[in-house]
């Protein structure tokens, strides 16, 4: 735990912001005000934040249908995101994309994605671009990261992307978030390699890591090692599998009958990254409960504001449908 007070506070705030963002959406969606499919990231915050806290804007990420956490962790504007989910013209994508297509290219966030498995080759392409651009003055490469789920790891596109990255030595990192479900199906059934996704990446010729995705420090430290390896010119890609949990349904409205008795309560009690973080840093006297409570209040306030702004934000007009299909035509 080599993080100072400031870095710890920042990491906690990012995780808390994601948690509040998602918990609030969970409530708002029940009222019917928000349209479309929404997949919440609650439970997995330590992965997005433990990874993205290491990155700069030069580094790129490609996300999934469950993208809010990755977007926030990579620095997307919280209000711009909320407005997008509300379908506002002022949203990050002018209301064209919604929850599943949030992107902010300037921030190195190359898009959430509605197609499972589509992200990995895109991340490899961005990594090949990083390789062409070459190392910085310190001899380090920018990297590109593909976030994928345990479901996405069964797509041919994911396999092809891994092999392409290996043979081209692209500075790509495959981050597998194994939350043990793809929609309503368990990884015990769908992932043939004994629920071990990292071994697949290993078989493609990559160096791999595995860590507890519900512990920020485990994610942060492990990813630091992964990054050290991939930033080194000539090493090529790597993969890391994080064992994590999703606290809500696959999408909002999922009856979750596939869960075991008391499963969600047990996960919230024993596998909550925010709770674990608080216990660790207060136990080690790095931050106090008061410090963290202040961050909690601050994150909650940011979400309140984002929701209020989204409700008041300008709606798109019918003629906006035709905009941005092309740059010129």
């Amino acid at each position, binding site marked *: 735990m080599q993080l100072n007070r400031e870095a710890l506070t920042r990491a906690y705030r990012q995780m808390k912001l994601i948690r509040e963002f998602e918990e609030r959406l969970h409530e708002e969606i029940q009222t019917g005000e928000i*349209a*479309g*499919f929404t997949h919440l990231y609650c439970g997995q915050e330590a992965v997005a934040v433990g990874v993205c806290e290491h990155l700069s804007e030069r580094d790129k990420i490609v996300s999934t249908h469950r993208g809010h956490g990755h977007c926030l962790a990579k620095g997307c504007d919280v209000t711009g995101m909320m407005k997008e989910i509300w*379908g*506002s*013209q002022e949203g990050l*994508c002018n*209301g*064209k*994309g*919604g929850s*599943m*297509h949030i992107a902010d290219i300037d921030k190195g966030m190359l898009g959430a*994605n*509605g*197609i*499972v*498995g589509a992200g990995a080759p895109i991340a490899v392409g961005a990594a090949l671009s990083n390789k062409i651009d070459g190392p910085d003055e310190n001899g380090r490469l920018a990297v590109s990261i593909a976030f994928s789920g345990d*479901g*996405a790891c*069964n*797509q*041919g*596109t994911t396999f092809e992307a891994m092999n392409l990255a290996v043979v081209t030595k692209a500075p790509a990192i495959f981050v597998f978030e194994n939350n043990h*479900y*793809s*929609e*309503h*199906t*368990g*990884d*015990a*059934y*769908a*992932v*043939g390699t004994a629920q071990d996704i990292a071994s697949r990446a290993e078989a493609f010729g990559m160096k791999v890591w595995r860590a507890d995705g519900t512990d920020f420090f485990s994610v942060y430290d492990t990813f630091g090692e992964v990054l050290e390896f991939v930033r080194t010119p000539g090493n090529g890609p790597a993969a890391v599998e994080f064992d994590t949990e999703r606290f809500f349904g696959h999408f909002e409205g999922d*009856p979750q*009958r*596939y*869960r*075991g*008795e008391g*499963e969600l309560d047990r996960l919230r009690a024993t596998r909550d990254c925010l709770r674990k973080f608080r216990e660790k840093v207060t136990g080690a006297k790095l931050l106090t409960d008061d410090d963290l409570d202040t961050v909690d209040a601050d994150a909650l306030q940011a979400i309140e504001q984002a929701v209020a702004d989204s409700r008041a934000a300008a*709606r*798109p*007009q*019918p*003629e*906006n*449908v*035709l905009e941005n*299909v092309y740059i010129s035509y």
Partner: protein
Amino acid sequence: MAKMMYRDAIRGTIFQEMQRDPRVVVLGEDVVGGMGTAGGPEAIGGIWSTSTGLYDAFGPDRVIDTPISESAIMGAAGGLALAGKRPVAEIMFADFIGVCMDQLWNQIAKFRYMFGGKSVCPAVIRMPCGAGYNAAAQHSQMISQFVTSMPGLKVVMPATPADACGLLRQAIRDDDPVVFLEHKFLYAMTGEVPDDPDFVIPFGHARLARAGEDVTIVASGMMVGYAETAADDLAQDGVGCDVIDLRTTSPLDEEAILDSVEATGRLVIVDEAPPRCSLATDIAALVAGKAFASLKAPIEMVTAPHTPVPFARELEGAYLPSPAKVAAAVRKTLEYR
């Protein structure tokens, strides 16, 4: 007759055909729902409720829950069919055709022709399709234009529960590969469905959903309901419309379209897909070529714009055709000259 939802007509028909013919098998993502979980198989039973109960009735060899692997689903459907089975594969959203186009287009559709007529590939590919749920650009598309353009495939677009039943049964019993486009927005539609376990609707025969003398409206899938609503509104003003529900876009019932246009002289085509190289342009070309002399006004097309499907409610509303847009197009053809 029994009153039921479109989704239940689909599930019930698959169930009956699986009972009738041991070669019928089902495969797709989450078609069982709950595999490998504490809740166990059938905990959910398919996200569209179109496969609920099949696993319990027919077991894992014939109801195959697949990982998220559309290329493998599509290809396996082709292989099952070549090997003598009658697969009913589900691609959860028609948009995911992008992931598995090769197995459909270069493989399943072409086997028979490439093999000199020596193979039979009776695969049914069910694809829930269409907009209306604010599900944005990758979960809302109408893909009829792609699959209709592929030689070797038959393409079905049922607009009612009864048609979903009769056309699906025909699709399963048909020896050619069939793409079965179920509109997601129609799943909750209720209607009378014949009880006859051999009720089939032959392909290539359109249905006259409304009869009238002034204008022909051609539609398919969810657009049929829009055309009917428009026709009913126009009838109040004394305007009579033929509403032709294509039922299948390949084969296409050219005769039904041409006969109607020859009688009315005016044509409105309603198509949920974007306007270029689409069913709408296909039918317009047919009529311009074969019923030119009957036309009293330019052909009107009510389609989506040449854009992806947008997310926000206002934008998706502007994107989709609507009964009001159909009615306006009908009035426009009547006002001509």
